[in-house]
């Protein structure tokens, strides 16, 4: 066995504002199949966190069960993590987030983990607008259990054994928009140019950010006739527009023809620059977003890019009016202000 990642890195590896190189954001060497799309998504997360100068110890990675749900082991080794039960990542994320709102939450799930066993959890976490990034690594099958069709496999799509899927697929992005998600995007593991800025924007979004990433399973669902293979996806993607992420306070340098560019301002002042927008699509309009996805679908195309976004949202903490302080920092003095305060309170009720 020689499967070990060497210690050496490129000596000229640049450093981010925190003085960390990209390698500080790496995880263990992946044990997924060689060429799995999920690994590319992990690499995009590493890149996004490095670019955003995120302190790894301020991140929690949460996942369910599946090859996709294994990936948190393969990125951000210096972050917190919880590998939960199949389909139950949202509950764990909700609990963790309520206990400590200071961390960034990255939930990783698969199409099986989300669209089958975890569907109940998924819809509720959207409703609650939990402040997190929820990534589905969508390969149209249960990779870990050897490639059975999942609920996102398209009707008519052929699996490796030649079986044609008879059932309608669940379109997770449409569903998320429908249920009121405040940031919805779709992408392809093979297109980091698009995926990395989307990840960054999603991590900057205050509220529930959902990215459905088509991620080919090289071993069980990369065959001819599958609608989730590298070749098929490459031939059928269409983007809502090309996009750049411009962090807060930086200068916008690229210039585009008048009218073809739109700047979407995020909660913290960062900007998503969209160019060459799809006709008749307005990223702030839920109905137009649904229409755009459905139109593309009707043409057998997969619409990628940012689909829908709300700038100012009310997340779960805001709705519940919880304390600003993470529970682990609530001291006895704050929690037990003493008999004087109790008396004050009682008196006020008299």
């Amino acid at each position, binding site marked *: 066995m020689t499967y070990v990642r060497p210690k050496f890195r490129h*000596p000229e590896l640049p450093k981010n504002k925190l003085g960390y190189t990209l390698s500080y954001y790496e995880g263990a060497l992946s044990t997924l199949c060689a*060429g799995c799309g999920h690994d590319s998504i992990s690499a995009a997360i590493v890149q996004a966190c490095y670019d955003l100068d995120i302190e790894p110890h301020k991140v929690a990675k949460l996942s369910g069960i599946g090859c996709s749900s294994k990936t948190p082991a393969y990125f951000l080794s210096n972050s917190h993590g919880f590998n939960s039960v199949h389909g139950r990542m949202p509950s764990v994320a909700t609990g963790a987030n309520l206990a400590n709102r200071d961390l960034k939450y990255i939930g990783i799930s698969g199409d099986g983990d989300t669209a089958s066993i975890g569907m109940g959890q998924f819809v509720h976490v959207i409703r609650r607008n939990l402040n997190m990034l929820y990534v589905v690594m969508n390969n149209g099958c249960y990779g870990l259990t050897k490639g059975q069709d999942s609920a996102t496999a398209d009707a008519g799509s052929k699996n490796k054994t030649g079986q044609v899927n008879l059932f309608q697929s669940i379109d997770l992005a449409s569903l998320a928009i429908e249920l009121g998600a405040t940031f919805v995007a779709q992408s392809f593991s093979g297109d980091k140019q698009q995926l990395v800025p989307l990840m960054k924007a999603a991590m900057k979004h205050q509220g529930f950010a959902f990215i459905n990433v088509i991620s080919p399973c090289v071993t069980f669902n990369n065959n001819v006739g599958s609608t989730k293979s590298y070749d098929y996806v490459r031939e059928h993607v269409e983007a809502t527009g090309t996009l750049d992420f411009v962090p807060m306070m930086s200068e916008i340098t690229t210039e585009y023809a008048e009218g073809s560019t739109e700047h979407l301002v995020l909660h913290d002042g960062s900007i998503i620059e969209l160019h060459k927008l799809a006709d008749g699509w307005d990223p702030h309009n839920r109905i137009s977003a649904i229409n755009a996805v459905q139109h593309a679908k009707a043409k057998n195309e997969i619409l990628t890019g940012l689909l829908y976004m709300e700038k100012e949202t009310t997340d779960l903490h805001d709705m519940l009016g919880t304390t600003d302080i993470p529970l682990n920092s609530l001291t006895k003095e704050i929690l037990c202000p003493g008999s004087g305060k109790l008396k004050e309170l009682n008196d006020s009720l008299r």
Partner: protein
Amino acid sequence: MKPTDIQNPEYFHKVVDCQYACPAHTPVPEYIRLIAEGKYTEAYMINWDSNVFPGVLGRTCDRPCEPACRRGRVEEEPVAICRLKRVAADNKGDVKQHMPHGPFPANGKKIALIGAGPASLTVARDLAPLGYEIHLYDEQKLGGGFMRSQIPSFRLPETVLNEEVDYILDLGIHTHFNTYVSSLKEILARSYDAVFVGSGAPRGRDLPDMEGRKEGDANIHIGIDWLSSVAFEHTNKIGKKVIVLGGGNTAMDCCRTSRRLGGEEVRVIVRSPFAEMKASPWEKEDAMHEDIPIIDNHVPKSFVVTDGKLKGMMFEKVHAVYDDAGKRKLVPTGEPEVFYEADDVLVAIGQENSFPWIERDLGLEFDKWNMPVVDPITYCSTNKKVFFGGDAAFGPKNVITAVAHGHQAAISIHLACEGQDMMNRLAPFVNLTNMKMGIHEWSYDSMVVNDERYVVPQADKKITLTNRKQEVELGFDRLDGFKEAQRCLNCDVQTVFTESKCIECDACMDVCPTSCITFTVNEEEHDLRQHLKVPAMNLTQDLYVSDILPTKRVMVKDEDVCLHCGLCAERCPTSAWDMKKYFYNVTKAVNACQQEAIV
């Protein structure tokens, strides 16, 4: 950029940095792997084929390979390539059985070799098995040239040298030792089919016009003459206080030898700044370890002689000033001259060629520096029967360069004797072998070890300074040799890319620990270098570029800091990347003549 032509044998050769830098292109990683496997005899023979003197070079080589070693680009120190060669030599079994055995059927051709240094000995080794009758001339009593007369035995024991010289002489060479050749014309008249001049650069520079030079002559010695007189045991002592002038390797050998012949206060005094001295860093370290101070920025002004006896020398202090073009000038500091005491002074300020024995009417042209005009590919002079190599060809270099010249000259001589065109030289022998054995299984140790360079143990100074013949370095033992060998990155195990298989999943790009691989839009080299995952700023290292892939991008691999770990190939789902061992061997005289086409 255009797609890389990996069919060109030089492309992958250049990736094997050490082998490429070695003048004789020794297949370094191949022998290092053999050492790790404990196959010392095989490792020795790989060396012997390429560099003829593995035991000698494993102790004394100038090691141009080590500054080139890739490992030095990812961590502090390169692999101890040179000292690993010695491990092979020290631990080898019976190597003679693998060498050619005479008597060889004569081919009727006679060759004269002038000088018995490494260049001539290489020619002899390469040509003898082809049936040439070889006559080797040297004014010294034994073969080896400067390896014997100059390199001191505390760096190179005589037994090691004798063994490797004898492997060659035993091929049936006719030796004419103690024979100074005083006329090339006379040699040519003896109807040799070719004459090879490997007479070295035997004249040491002097300071003939310096004040006090003549008066102090009895205690002023030319470094290389003095070293050879020590080597041949004509000299066995020196004064207590010694000044060695010069900053090259000869100066280092002079000062260290002085310490062994009674020199107590030995100083090296050199004009240039310490960092710019010609001596290799390890030679300077070894000298300082033997309590020899190196005094830099001092220009010799005069020998001080009182009552006919040398007392010391005066020096002017200087400092280095550099003009815009980076050219150095030594400018006096203006301080008063300084005096250093000395009983003896060794002048080691350089060597020159000298060909008093070559007549100038032989159709053999000399240039304005009085150097023979020699073709850098064929090593042939303007007299088609006379060839040059080693220090005699282009001035003083080192043993491995002399060997490299010898191989090429031997090819030319063989081609000429066979009536073929000397420029009709065969490409190197190359072979690309698949290294995949299974999942996570390669037929080389792809795992990169983190160990730092191991230090070669040395004998106690108390012993080495009292016995001139006691070798200072003891060499790695087998275990340290193994561990040092494991530091090699196997740069000859090439990453080979097949674009038709690539599905552009990016797995290789994501997994590569040293960010070598980028999939991007194609551009001109200059721009492409800027736009890689990590910009490729080491221009001496090539970019490996694929043809256009389906998504209109190209695969670009910066060869610079690739660890040859094989992870790209492990993570590639389609084997678009593969690890293949590239064996490259310079063609030698034995294989130099194209076979007549069989009709």
